[in-house]
């Protein structure tokens, strides 16, 4: 379990998001310090994934602020009126934050190696040889060194997800967002992906993890956030959330998921 150094890496302030009439995020405030692993749990439809997608500006919230490494990201605000940054500026912030998706979203037309070096070469302008070398080191770390020349659809789900984690790490991100990354996996493949994430957490990576894996949250998180109906209901250490949750809604939710 890694503790943060205190300097906030991801800060979210009063975030609101609607999908049509549905108020998905109802004023989210959250801060993730450098080196911290924050797990977000909660029933489906509680807005967890939308929160992650807003932090990467894959969704744009109607109001609220996102700061990455202390800097206001994606748009400026002037008296409640938002002005979006240029596409290039938005992309530059996203390049600093890695994201891993539920459905992997590897690029099927590229090999595993191609997936890893694509953005370092074309976004970070790294020389190909250097990009390949660091990609190979990452593939060794996630246990896929022998799959560098395979195409994604030749891999198992667990292998694909480990490749996707390596792809995000290849950008040398300041923080990583994990969006239910084990939910689409067969049960026997979940462990290998969680093992990579544990390793990453122990290396001090700043991580915001939306997950249904309660044992992972209990063992790895520095802090657990429980969300319901677009709000953060409770935020505490894993010991407290899983041992003595304050809020009745947290208790109800944990009872249902842990009794399975």
């Amino acid at each position: 379990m890694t503790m943060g150094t205190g300097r906030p890496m991801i800060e979210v302030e009063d975030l609101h998001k609607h999908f049509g009439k549905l108020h998905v995020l109802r004023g989210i405030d959250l801060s993730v310090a450098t080196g911290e692993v924050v797990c977000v749990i909660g029933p489906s439809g509680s807005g967890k994934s939308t929160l992650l997608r807003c932090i990467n500006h894959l969704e744009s919230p109607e109001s609220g602020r996102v700061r990455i490494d202390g800097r206001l990201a994606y748009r400026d605000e002037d008296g409640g009126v938002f002005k979006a940054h240029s596409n290039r500026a938005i992309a530059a912030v996203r390049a600093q934050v890695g994201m891993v998706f539920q459905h992997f979203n590897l690029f099927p037309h590229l090999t595993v190696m191609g997936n890893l070096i694509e953005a370092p070469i074309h976004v970070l302008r790294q020389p190909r040889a250097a990009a390949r070398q660091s990609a190979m080191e990452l593939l060794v770390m996630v246990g896929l060194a022998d799959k560098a020349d395979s195409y994604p659809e030749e891999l198992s789900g667990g292998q694909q997800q480990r490749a996707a984690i390596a792809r995000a790490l290849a950008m040398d991100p300041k923080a990583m967002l994990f969006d239910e990354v084990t939910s689409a996996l067969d049960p026997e493949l979940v462990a290998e992906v969680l093992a990579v994430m544990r390793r990453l957490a122990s290396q001090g990576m700043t991580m915001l993890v939306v997950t249904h894996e309660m044992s992972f949250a209990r063992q790895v998180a520095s802090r657990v956030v429980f969300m319901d109906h677009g709000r953060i209901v409770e935020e505490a250490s894993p010991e407290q959330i899983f041992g003595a949750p304050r809020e009745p809604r947290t208790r109800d939710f944990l009872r249902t998921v842990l009794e399975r």
Partner: protein
Amino acid sequence: MFELFNPQVAVANIGPLLGGLLITVELTFVVIALSLIFALFVALAGMSRITPLRWVVKCYVEVIRGTPLLLQLIYVYYVLPSLGVRLDPFSAGVLALTLNYSAYISEVYRGGIQAISRGQHDAAAALGMTNALAMRRIILPQAIRIVLPTLGNYFISLFKDTALASAVSIQELVYTAQVRAALSYQYFTLYTVVAVMYFAVSFPAARLVGYLERVTRAGYRRRRP
């Protein structure tokens, strides 16, 4: 049968007819090359965030689809000169066919681009790619592979549609046959040879497209020794 088909006439005309076939093939390839590129710009403009640009594209595509190709050829060759644009027959044919096929092919491209899942866009964006870079490196390579067989079928039908260019006196295969037939009255022989020539090109091409279809359906895999 043998009274109708005169082998001597066929042999005597084979040279000029092959010359016509060459023009047909040339016209086809020039239009393929131009419309592959032009249609991509049309497709991207049609999906642009700039509303007037989308309207222009929409109008262009609908006008082309709502009028006959033969009319478009005639229009470019006979009407444009009165607006001060005078083109030789071949250029007029290239222009009209390119405008026509680009409208259809842009829709094919659009379908292919829209077939790429949201997740691919998300993943590219999350890696810090701009829309333009994601389009060029991630979306288009997958989309083009999807539409390859459809494009092949369009180009086979383009090969046959170039026959309409005879209406603006391009000396392609049908035009050559018409001129020869008018001189010799050997309609059966000449047009049968022409039909065989078209078939001899489009049938193998169709088989090639069938092969492409199988390859693209097989997905992305490592070639093993």
